[in-house]
């Protein structure tokens, strides 16, 4: 369980209450570079809430976040982006009226050179070509690069969000149930992409309810239950049964991890 | 006879010598201008001329200008217009004159009225002063008075308020509580008056600078249960105002002479079109109507509501 390495991202004692619901309850979490960390837990365990807190989308009531060992204030999504953290949210967060290319490059457009660039004109052609390449890599079935993503199928939208996050992440990428809407082939591609990204030294956080996928792709598994981390284990050391038990509370690990 | 709001259809001039006259009101649907329209239509009918009536929804030069522009494009022989602003309407009306249209300014005027064959105006400031006289007559002992106007920047009501305020200043036994603006909403006028009476229960007179201000003020006074103790003087003497006067809601009215203005306007226009001499400036007066003279002397001053 102990690694000599410094975690690229580390959370200690995060709590967040919504009305009477305690979505995060003194939760710890850490991810190491070049590792795929699976984050699992029952519905409503607080996984998405944790992701939002660590990507600057949600203020927590208490707790600290460290990046490369130094305490950071993850005050906004831009702060997270600036640190090289990218996220695929469970509720996708694409702009429905924009096309896939615009969504892919939103906030990171390639500007033209010279004055035109300074005035905000963009290299549309180039962005299109690069997006096409990124989608192809995932085997995404995005049928048109010029129609709004709001008109696309669930899986097509999912693929665009994943392509975007993978394209831009330099340190950490959060994938909140990325394969939920994907077809068989696309899922395989995404799992492969996850490995490829990991091999570049980027930390990947993979959230999924599919235990086979989790076991197939992850190096380490952290289990949330009722807003608290109840386990942090190497994938090699565990089994499907134990994981299910941990999520539902049938099995408990001794001590805080 | 035609009912107040309906102008006759457009016919281009020529034909059997019938001229086409366009009348642009300061604001559509105001009884003052409707009475004026009646005067115009009556006079025009006598002369065999046709009349088109247009007007903006508000007393607002930015709304009146496009209408004047369109009128000019439709090429009437003559234009009777109540400009909504002394400078804003200068250029559009000049353009009309330049297009060979004979222009007569009615009620309100312009900074430089030289393009007009005639200007027939009423004295709004004098009317405001007369309204004060009506309050003084009812309350010779003096007291607090309030003006309820429409919006700041409307030239006619501003002039009425200014005339009233000036008259108050010259009379030390009266104090003015200033001008409040009702934004042409009777309900706002009512709110203002009830609040003002709450603050100064000893108000003796309210000058309401237009119809809605008068209606709202009357409602406010009634709500506060002070009818009979506060004298409300309204402006203009359309049938609605006269009914308010007869009902005792309003104690006096300042009546202008819109029908006369209209009649004179048509006369001047026809003279100009026929190449006869015109009068450069005609000033019309006003009458104060109270319950005492409404059925007698004052009756003549009441505006026509239906054109005969």
């Amino acid at each position, binding site marked *: 369980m102990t690694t000599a390495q410094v975690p690229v991202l580390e959370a200690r004692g995060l709590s967040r209450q919504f*009305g009477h619901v305690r979505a995060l309850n003194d939760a710890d979490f850490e991810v190491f570079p070049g590792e795929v960390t699976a984050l699992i837990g029952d519905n409503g365990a607080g996984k998405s809430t944790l992701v939002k807190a660590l990507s600057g*989308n949600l*203020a927590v009531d208490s707790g600290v976040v460290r990046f490369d060992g130094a305490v950071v204030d993850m005050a906004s999504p831009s702060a997270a982006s600036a640190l090289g953290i990218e996220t695929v949210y469970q509720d996708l967060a694409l702009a429905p009226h924009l096309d896939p290319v615009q969504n892919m490059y939103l906030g990171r457009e390639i500007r033209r050179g010279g004055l035109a660039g300074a005035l905000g004109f963009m290299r549309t052609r180039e962005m299109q070509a690069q997006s096409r390449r990124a989608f192809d890599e995932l085997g995404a079935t995005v049928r048109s690069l010029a129609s709004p993503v709001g008109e696309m199928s669930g899986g097509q939208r999912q693929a665009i969000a994943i392509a975007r996050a993978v394209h831009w992440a330099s340190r950490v990428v959060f994938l909140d149930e990325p394969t939920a809407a994907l077809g068989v082939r696309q899922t395989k591609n995404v799992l492969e992409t996850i490995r490829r990204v990991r091999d570049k030294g980027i930390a990947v956080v993979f959230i999924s309810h599919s235990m086979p996928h989790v076991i197939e792709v992850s190096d380490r598994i952290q289990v949330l239950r009722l807003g608290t981390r109840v386990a942090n284990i190497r994938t090699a050391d565990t089994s499907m049964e134990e994981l299910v*038990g941990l999520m539902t509370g049938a*099995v*408990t690990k001794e001590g805080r991890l | 006879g035609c009912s107040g709001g309906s102008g006759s259809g457009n016919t281009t001039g020529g034909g059997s010598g019938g001229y086409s006259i366009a009348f642009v009101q300061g604001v559509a649907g105001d009884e003052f201008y409707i009475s004026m329209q009646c005067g115009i239509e009556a006079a025009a009918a006598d002369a065999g001329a046709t009349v088109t009536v247009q007007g903006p929804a508000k007393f607002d030069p930015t709304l009146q200008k496009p209408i004047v522009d369109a009128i000019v494009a439709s090429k009437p022989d003559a234009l009777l217009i109540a400009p909504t602003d002394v400078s804003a309407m200068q250029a559009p009306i000049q353009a009309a004159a330049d297009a060979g249209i004979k222009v007569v300014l009615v009620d309100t005027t312009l900074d430089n009225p030289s393009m007009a064959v005639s200007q027939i105006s009423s004295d709004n400031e004098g009317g405001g002063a007369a309204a004060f006289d009506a309050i003084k007559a009812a309350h010779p002992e003096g007291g607090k008075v309030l003006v309820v106007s429409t919006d700041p920047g409307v030239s006619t009501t501003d002039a009425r308020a200014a005339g009233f305020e000036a008259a108050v200043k010259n009379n030390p036994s009266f104090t003015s509580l200033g001008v409040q603006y009702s*934004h042409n909403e*009777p*309900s706002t006028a009512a709110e203002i008056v009830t609040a003002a009476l*709450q603050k100064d229960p000893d108000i003796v007179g309210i000058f309401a600078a237009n119809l809605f201000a008068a209606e709202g003020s009357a409602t406010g006074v009634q709500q506060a249960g002070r009818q009979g103790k506060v004298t409300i003087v309204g402006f203009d003497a359309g049938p609605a105002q006269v009914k308010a006067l007869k009902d005792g809601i309003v104690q006096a009215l300042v009546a202008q002479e819109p029908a006369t203005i209209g009649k004179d306007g048509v006369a001047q226009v026809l003279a100009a079109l026929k190449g006869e001499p015109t009068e450069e400036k005609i000033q019309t007066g006003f009458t104060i109507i109270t319950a005492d003279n409404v059925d007698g002397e004052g009756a003549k001053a009441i505006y026509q509501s239906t054109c005969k």
Partner: protein
Amino acid sequence: MIVKSPVTETVAIGTIDEPRTSFVGRVVRAQAFQIFLVLLVIVGIFSAIAPDTFAQWSNFRLIIQNASILGVLAVGMTYVIITAGIDLSVGSVLVFSGVVAAITMRALGGEGWGVATIGILVSIVSGLAWGVVNGVLIAKAKIPPLIVTLGSLGMALGLAQILTGGIDIREVPSVLTTSIGYGNVFGTIPTISVIALVVIVIGAIVLHFTRFGLYTLAVGSSEIATRRVGVKVDGQLIKIYALSGALAGLAGILSLSQFSTTAIAGQSQTNLNVIAAVVIGGTSLFGGVGTIVGTVVGLFIPAVLQNGFVITGVQPFWQQVAVGAVLITAVYVDQVRRSAAMRGNSQGLWRKFVSGGRRG
């Protein structure tokens, strides 16, 4: 290291936070209550400044009376805005209904309750008719509500002017003026306000406790979801615009009673005033949330400000400035308090200032 224990449900349903809170607690957390506090503060300030002119029942009575007609309109507008719609036509429909009723009553002649009752019905039906037209165009022809009601604003006003020739009608049966316009219940409560109160109470009960209200919220929350579960969304929308129209008709006869004139050129600001009241009261222009109580409070904030400023002698030009500033401040305070309540901790306002208002 591993301890087995019997399998349990992760969370039993509804065991964590069923509304165990007291009635008072729920009221305090209700969104309408936040803005009510703002209103209380405003009333408190004016009362302190002008205790014997502002803080009198006679004055409050007049404020209430003056807000009554807007209150009737605001109930309908709340329903409309909850569906993410808008009704710009209420002022014109009010005028139109008043004109039709006045013409009818003048034609019938007489001053008694018979004529007055017919007038009341005619007015409501006229408003209802406009509302149905609006509703059909919005629900069936799928034209944006802003365009439809902007169009019917012009049309209703134009027709009112055509009917009267632009000259206000002032012959109103005296029973209307004396009993509704200026009558009192229990000696001191204006009849017109009692009528408004009845409308408001029924409006609130229907919105919060009946199926009609539920469908209204559902349509505003997600039209497509509501349609998919088989609710007749088009019919619901038509009914809501019809309600707004009918209430504008009722307001038309109330206005006729109070002002004894059709006031054709008046009411040009009515729509914005009513919409502002609804939004101040916490109803979202994007639909799905809203309360009638909030709307009523939202109505009184500008009314009390206007009254208070005149009484405390603020100059007219400054009044506009002050009303604008207080409006913005009131909604801001309400908004901060509400999001603080959402976070479940109460030092929200202070925290917000310190943290720079980050979303949570």
